[in-house]
């Protein structure tokens, strides 16, 4: 009965200690990053004070431009859409212990694959075209990142370095293709693939003002969370992430899992490229290399590679970025200001990881018991 005495409130008696601990851990998982976010913002405020700018005004503008009006939300969500898919390309392999930072490569090649489908089969009806573009982008993105997983497993090549370097190769390959074999001769001063037929263009989610890539991103995050946390495949993947040798001794197909999950991550990044082409640009060109793959790394780490947590992390970061312009215009601060804020928040949230299980509700509960 001592355990129950530790819990406040009349309902406490009916909650089992284990449930309380799980609940406490869940609260920890939400509260710690939140507190870290606020601490990061406070540290950033000190920088602002040194510059003679008001932190209150700064965060009011961030709120207004990122979340304060319906337009702000459209702005934020439009920026979050590619980040959700880009973050999955980091988060999924990370659960197997792989640090993949070259999702940018899968994004640009996924976009080129979509552009190539439109170049070679423009006569198809819109629905089929979109499906085909999606499949092509997912296959190309999946193969690109899957190859990195394969190199890691079969040849012991460091996946962090190889994925980063392969992102540069991917961008060079994209430039070669859109300026060479896939170039639309009519695109004179901005080499691009042939424009997508109108019926192939992906529109906006009604009432939201953001293209369907956002919905696909959110569904993707939820599916990945279910896959990792609620299926035997995900369980096996987490064991591989804990210790490859132990997993192999248990008879788990470590190689298949590593290649499969990296390829799945790459497929999501490829889809992000497809949505950039089909919903935003209308053709594949050098604008595809916009750095979403790199912002995705930050978001995946912030979310601790948890699919569900990627959604709020991407929205917060997208909100910061949505406010960057108004910050420049109203406070006369340089465009890098928001990058500094993002960097500080990133570091404080990562540091808060170290505090996990030291400062926590679970600990408090246990403390009460003694």
């Amino acid at each position: 009965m001592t355990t129950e005495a530790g819990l406040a409130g009349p309902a406490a008696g009916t909650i089992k200690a284990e449930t309380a601990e799980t609940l406490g851990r869940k609260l920890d998982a939400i509260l710690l990053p939140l507190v870290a976010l606020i601490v990061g913002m406070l540290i950033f405020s000190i920088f602002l004070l040194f510059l003679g700018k008001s932190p209150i005004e700064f965060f009011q503008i961030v709120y207004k431009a990122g979340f304060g009006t319906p337009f702000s939300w459209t702005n934020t969500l439009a920026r979050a859409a590619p980040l959700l898919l880009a973050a999955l390309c980091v988060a999924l392999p990370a659960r197997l212990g792989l640090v993949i930072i070259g999702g940018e490569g899968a994004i640009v090649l996924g976009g080129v694959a979509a552009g190539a489908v439109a170049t070679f089969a423009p006569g198809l009806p819109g629905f089929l075209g979109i499906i085909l573009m999606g499949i092509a982008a997912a296959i190309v993105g999946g193969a690109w990142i899957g190859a990195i997983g394969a190199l890691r497993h079969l040849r012991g090549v460091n996946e962090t370095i190889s994925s980063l370097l392969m992102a540069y190769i991917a961008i060079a390959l994209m430039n070669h293709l859109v300026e060479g074999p896939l170039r639309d001769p009519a695109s004179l001063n901005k080499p691009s693939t042939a424009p997508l037929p109108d019926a192939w263009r992906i529109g906006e989610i009604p009432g939201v003002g953001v293209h369907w890539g956002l919905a696909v991103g959110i569904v993707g995050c939820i599916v990945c969370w279910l896959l990792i946390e609620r299926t035997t495949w995900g369980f096996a993947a987490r064991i591989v992430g804990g210790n490859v040798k132990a997993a192999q001794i248990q008879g788990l197909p470590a190689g298949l899992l590593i290649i499969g999950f990296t390829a799945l991550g790459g497929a999501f990044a490829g889809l992000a490229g497809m949505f950039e082409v089909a919903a935003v640009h209308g053709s594949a060109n050098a604008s595809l290399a916009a750095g979403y793959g790199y912002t995705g790394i930050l978001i995946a780490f912030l979310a601790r590679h948890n699919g569900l947590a990627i959604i709020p992390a991407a929205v917060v970061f997208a909100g910061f970025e949505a406010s960057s312009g108004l910050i420049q215009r109203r406070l006369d601060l340089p465009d890098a200001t928001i990058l500094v804020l993002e960097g500080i928040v990133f570091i404080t949230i990562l540091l808060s990881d170290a505090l996990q299980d030291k400062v926590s509700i679970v600990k408090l509960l246990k403390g009460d018991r003694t």
Partner: protein
Amino acid sequence: MTKIWTPNRRQFLKSTAGVAGLAAASSILPGGIARAAGLTVGFIYVGPKDDYGYNQSHAEGAAVVKKIPGVKVVEEERVPETVDVQKTMESMINFDGATLLFPTSFGYFDPHILALAPKYKDVRFEHCGGLWTEKNPKNVGSYFGYIGMGQYLNGIAAGHATKSKKIGFVAAKPIPQVLLNINSFLLGARAVDPTITCQVIFTGEWSLAVKEAEATNALADQGVDVITCHVDGPKVVMETGAGRGMYLCGYHANQSKLAPEKYLTGAEWNWGKVYTDMVNATLKGETIPNFVRGGLSEGFIKMSPLGPAVSEAARKQFESTQATILKGGFSVIKGPLKDNKGNVVAKDGEAFAETDVKLESMNYLVEGVVGSTS
């Protein structure tokens, strides 16, 4: 403040009221909601405003506009050619009440400006690059300058300065605008000495400092002693070139500050004049034509003042050629002319004026240029 302006202001008051209402509802209102009178003009740049290049040339134009009474200028730099620029434009319209926008990067036009223009019919979108056609929305316009003539004049200064008879060009991408600049530079130099050759290196990107430095060094290693470029920010090429003892011809903006002794001259944009004209027209309630272009004689382009390394002979030829160009009707690309693969690109007696649309699909390097478009 007549017919064009009135609906804009009404629209703007409406949106301001909306924003103020929302802000009041959430009891949060950062200071500085844009004022309801006067014209707000938005400038958007793809890179930093102080890049000594393309973006700086536009920011200098914006600085001139700032001085016009009753005009408020809002600016944003380093805006990528993605959905970001659409949101920046909408943010300027919604939060600042901007009704005249200058999104200056080439890649902002299609699809971004074209996607927004139908949504904001009371806003005027003016894009740098000359892409507007009759099919596009009427509240969109494009403007551009014939800067090839500037590179031709650069070539004359270079032709006099080179001792090795090898001049160099660091280029971003083999697209028509860039090819015309390279060809003009070489032809300008050949107007001085027809044995001069021009080595070109393409970096593949508009802004990639490492490759620009490598290319400049590679050209210096090959004996090139005068260099120019067509990349977004010529700073790296100019500083690296000066460090290797090369003479410099500028591009986009005036880079003489970076190496005053080595800087011969430069082909500069003169956006201050173009923007002033457009803003004044808007203030008077006139409609800006959808398609605006000009060269040296229209004041869209200007040359940097000649540097101390320019010889007297060079000065004379430079000034007489400039005077000829200003009279109009001058052609850089004229026959007989072959490309560097031996194909005839202009027959004897054939000449392409700077306004000729055929030049806008240029896909060759002229004889004397060492390099390849693919």
